């Protein structure tokens, strides 16, 4: 499902964010990427999402060479294969919960009615259907992250990428989101999550990789 081969990425004159990273992940597995701040975790997520390109090495997801995609192609790749969950939710304030959730689907050309029906199903499944017409500014952190997850799942992605999904939440909300990811894992959703939350990594991950100064710390992939 995921293959990173000798991936390097640097920014300016500073030390490289990622150095010679190699890892693999099969479909249905969950990878937790852990490490201190500045170790290159978010860079790794960005490369997997096609938001950034490596200076060297290859990134292959679901048979697609993500590192060689154009901007437009990488946008289409994200629509069709990837769901993104952000630490700070990144919901659009001016849109209702439903409109936020349907956004990736309508950008991908899905009919509005189909997108709304699917969004309603997801909100129901995530237990926040009562918030469908609310605006993000009125939601709690946990509710916002549930909306973020619903948005990530709207296009039924092969890969769910989550960047510190519990990082901005209080402990109760974090536990709530942990449960949500456990459910997704149980449904064989392939997940890569970047986290400081060792509880989340420990309970959820089939694999854990630790990054330190842009390098994977041996063993590269631990079960």
């Amino acid at each position: 499902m995921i293959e990173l081969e000798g991936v390097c990425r640097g920014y300016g004159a500073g030390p490289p964010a990622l150095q010679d990273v190699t890892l693999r992940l099969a479909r249905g597995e969950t990878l937790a990427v852990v490490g201190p701040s500045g170790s290159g975790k978010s860079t790794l997520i960005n490369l997997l999402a096609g938001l950034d390109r490596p200076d060297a090495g290859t990134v292959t997801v679901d048979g697609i060479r993500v590192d060689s995609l154009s901007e437009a192609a990488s946008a289409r790749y994200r629509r069709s294969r990837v769901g993104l969950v952000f630490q700070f939710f990144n919901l659009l304030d001016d849109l209702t919960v439903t409109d936020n959730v349907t956004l990736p689907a309508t950008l991908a050309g899905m009919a509005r009615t189909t997108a709304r029906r699917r969004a309603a199903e997801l909100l129901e499944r995530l237990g926040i259907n009562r918030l469908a017409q609310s605006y993000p500014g009125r939601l709690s952190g946990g509710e916002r992250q549930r909306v973020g997850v619903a948005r990530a799942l709207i296009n039924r992605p092969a890969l769910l990428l989550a960047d510190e999904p519990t990082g901005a939440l209080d402990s109760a909300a974090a536990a709530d989101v942990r449960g949500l990811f456990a459910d997704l894992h149980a449904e064989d959703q392939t997940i890569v999550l970047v986290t400081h939350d060792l509880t989340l990594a420990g309970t959820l991950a089939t694999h854990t990789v630790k990054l330190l100064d842009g390098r994977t710390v041996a063993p590269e992939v631990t079960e």
Partner: protein
Amino acid sequence: MSGLGQVVRSGIRRRRLTTVAVGLAVLMAVTAAVLGGSLLVASSAPFARAFARQHGAHLTVQFDATKLSPAQAAGTARTTGITAAAGPFPVVSATPKAQPTQAPAPLTLVGRPDPDGAVDDVEVTNGRWPSKPDEIVLSGDAPYARLGAVLRFPALPGSPAFTVVGHAVSVSRTADAWVTPDALTAPAGYQMLYRFADAGSDAQVAADRGRIAAATPAGALTGSRSWLVVKHDADQNTGVFVPFLAAFGILGLVMSALIVGTVVTGAIGASIRRIGILKALGCTPAQVTRAYAGQALLPASAGAALGVVAGNALAVPVLAQTNSVYGTPSSGVAPWTDFLVVAGILAVVAATAISSAWRAGRLRTVDALAVGQRPTSGHGRVAAWIAARVPGPQQLGLGLSRPFARPARAFGLLAAVTFGTVTVTFALGLAATTADVATAKNHDNADVVVHADLQFLGRGQKPGTSPRPAKATGTSAQIGVAITAQPGTRAYYALAETSVAVAGVSGTSDLYAFAGDTSWAGYQMVAGTWFHGPGEAVAVSTFLHETGTRIGDTVTLQAQGQAVPVRIVGEVFDPHTTPEVLVDAATFPQLTPDSYHIALRSGVNTSAYTSRLQAALRPYGLEVLPAGGGSHSGTLLALNALTGLLTLMLVVIAGLGVLNDVVLDTRDRIHDIGVCKALGMTPRQTVAMVLTSVLPAGLAGGLLGVPAGFLLHARIAPAMGHAAGLNLPTQAVNVLHRPELSALVIAGLLIALLGAALPAGWAARTRTATALRTE
């Protein structure tokens, strides 16, 4: 101060796009203002300025070469009252062998060793002054234009041929062409040019002339021309254009100041959070003000420096065209214009920057810091809700709802587009009016003219030229049949010209008697109607004024021994100051036509038609020539080029206002754009979203700006006409019709879209990861 300097430098580095927008806006503003200011200067008494600059001749005198030696002519410079003199220059009048399509008009040739002198500094506008006896330089308004052309003068001794080596302008109109003195081996006379201590009135110039005549043998002074006559001709030909071109200049200046003010205010308005940080770090409001004034003034100064260069570079051809309209020598940009423009624009930048930064600096620090970090106020949610439910691509809905989220900024955008559209509408209306006035001024739409009275060939004749030829033979009926029979003829009318006296009024007026279809002739009515038959007349405003008559009055015209009462049924537009009255030819049946004016069918070759008609009319001794061309079309071309350039400049400035607003808005929401891109928005969809966000303002700006510009033009154009002493015909004011106005609404959209294109591309190219990291 070094700390503040660091703040300024880092601010400029961090907000590069805004810095570039300020610099670009100032560059365009200074360029437009230099152009506008130069136009204003050029339009301010163009003849008087050019006359002063060239030390124009108050009196041009020609002495008979057989009665006065060159030394005697030179001696007249010592006559009382003369402050400067030039000459004697040998002079002849001769007709060059013409091109087949040109009237063989005689030229006054003056032998002059160089263009400079104490009087009449002739300005060489193209090529060089003649240095050999077989070279000639032509006056700018002479009919033979091309450098390198050879003019042969069969009537001069030795049939000399001259190669055209240059073109020159003499404001005093002292010659049609200049050659070296030794080229004129048998001069008919000697030309002397004088400046006097007192030459402000006809009486003073007449007294000056009288003293010169008294100082020379009787009959030696064969001709003279006062500068007041030249000035009168120049003023009546160009006066009509002065207010129109001056209006363009004012538009450029006003627009420049407004757009620069908007851009700087917007740029500082987008920096409030940074201002909060500076205050939190200990900057006082005064330091913040100084820092942000500096941040605006640095790129503004760079833009101003480049703008002066660009303005001067552009002003050279523009002023050349302007001066060709005015018939004056080209004038460069006055240094004080550059200085005033730069100082004025930088003062606008400083004033707006200081007032905006001062307001921002007085905000409570916590409020300034919170800008952009609090949830949005809820503006635009309804619009976003509706847009999300309207069928169509999602990115378009996101774009369309955007203006409602930031109403203040959307209002700024709307103002820029509206102002731009008002300006473009007004400018195009003004240009169309100017062109219409220029056409109406010449009121002759003929393609070909048959000259029955060959005296037209003597136009521009100077003292001492050969007698005029007589009228040709052939009746008007015969000539009319020949014209009608000619394939390609669409319509024609015959025109007779003579002087008439009006019973009870001193002086004479010019009478024009028309026969045939005059509907296409190009005369435009200010009021009333065109005459419908004998006994009716239309008159120009000068005639009505001088005779004290109005439409509906009856006057008795006396011409060639016949007194005919006619009722004035209309006022026809004519900017000339000569009193003219126009009647049906049947009113004065004894008059014979002087010319026949022919309109050709579409697609007919004028040159071939002219040749065929010339052959058909040869038995009658008539001259057939293509009409139009000359200074009329040249003036129009110059005006059109000027209008195009100035309108383009104003559109670019309006577009810069839009650009700045969209840049600021795109910066504000770059994080949201990054989110959308992360969720799968392609670069093309991003461009579409940003462009769509300006559509409401573009459309609304067009819909508001077009009627506003239309009304402004409808009010200003007649007022400017009155300022020039003209009653403009309705047709010259109502120049913008529904198709043009509809197209101008689209122009509002185009201004908005063009202004947004750059930031849209920038948003599409921004790396998603970078955008997501942006606060």
